[in-house]
């Protein structure tokens, strides 16, 4: 009888299944690929092909390291962490690349950042998502990533701490600094 993970199964239950049968990995990939695809695009501003290459590498690394996953922690944070590391590696290998700010990702999501950072009053309430997208592109990758995690991925401080592997206190100051930089760029 073919096993098929249901939607009710936890990530960890699927992980255990994958360790028995690699084909079950597709269920976990399906669960995360879209989220991670968007996450990579939001932080790296890369085209679809590069995003898919990075994503594939993320899933290969995750599979290799599956036994290091500790069910005490969120699987989501674990796989986001691997994605973050892959993104950093990509950035290091492509230092002089041009950001692809033209790509047509779900731009409306960037509205969230402008409103959450509370800068509507500062004459940008009529900005469209593309402009927010452009301002974000000008931020350093570390500030952009923390804003994306907080305001778009809606991760809490502990999750961001686990993903970026920094203390939660540092997450708070990173977010504040990122907000300040964002505001300065807006002005």
């Amino acid at each position: 009888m073919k096993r098929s993970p249901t939607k009710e199964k936890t990530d960890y239950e699927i992980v255990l299944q994958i360790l028995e049968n690699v084909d079950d990995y597709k269920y976990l990939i399906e669960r995360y690929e879209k989220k991670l695809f968007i996450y990579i695009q939001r932080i790296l501003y890369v085209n679809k092909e590069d995003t898919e290459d990075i994503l594939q590498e993320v899933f290969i690394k995750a599979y290799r390291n599956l036994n290091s996953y500790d069910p005490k922690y969120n699987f989501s944070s674990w796989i986001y962490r691997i994605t973050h590391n892959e993104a950093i590696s990509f950035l290091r290998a492509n230092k002089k690349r041009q950001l692809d700010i033209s790509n047509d990702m779900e731009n409306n999501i960037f509205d969230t950042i402008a409103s959450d950072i509370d800068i509507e009053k500062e004459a940008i309430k009529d900005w469209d998502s593309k402009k927010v997208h452009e301002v974000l592109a000008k931020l350093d990758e570390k500030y952009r990533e923390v804003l994306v995690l907080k305001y778009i991925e809606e991760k809490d401080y502990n999750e961001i701490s686990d993903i970026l592997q920094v203390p939660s206190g540092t997450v708070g100051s990173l977010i504040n600094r990122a907000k300040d930089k964002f505001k300065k760029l807006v002005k």
Partner: protein
Amino acid sequence: MEEVSKNTLQQIKKENIKPIPKWQFLLKDSLVWGLFAINLILGSIGFAISLYILGSNDVLLDTSLVKNAWEWIILSIPIAWILLTILFVFIAYYNFKHTKEGYRFTVVKIFLMNIVVSIVLGVVMNGFGLSQKLNTIFSDHIPFYNHTMDLRSDIWMRPESGYLAGTIVDINSDTKILKIEDLKGKIWDILYQDATVKGRVVLELGEEIKIVGNAVSDNVFEASEIRPWVGNGRQMQENS
């Protein structure tokens, strides 16, 4: 998007990629924790021996033993051990940072924790006399130890200037002559008839002592004061 799932599984199968076994992760974690513990203990030993040498160093309170301030600093403070302690605390910090949850702690928290543990363990080790025992072991087995880590021998092996140290190997209480084996293994006759013997010194075989006086000949030394090897001027005054 389906391509990612398909391509990933294809690559895993084609390259026969397998998950790294759990024991390898456990081993790596244990190694990092083990190294952290080792460096924390080494830091504590470093601190304990620094305390011991500092507490046993006459130069700190008796400036007549040195010529100038620079010499006083070099000879009274166990600089090498303090530097080694700092190094171990740094390595322990590095190890802790690389444990599974090390990233959750700030640099300040980790350093404070390492320093507090090293100090507490160091004080306990020193209190139990472990630092003295370890220092003796190092001194006996590590070449150049006495010229780099514990400089007391440099201070007390200057018979021509009136300072000598060693272990009592023979006592003649009738003639008031001791035989000592100095720190370099040479045997000396010590005339101690007119010497002040500080309170903590017990004139018995195996006792380690420091002697102030003057060299009468190549192997005869006239003592004016006999101090215990362990302890500094203040402790000796309290005990004399």
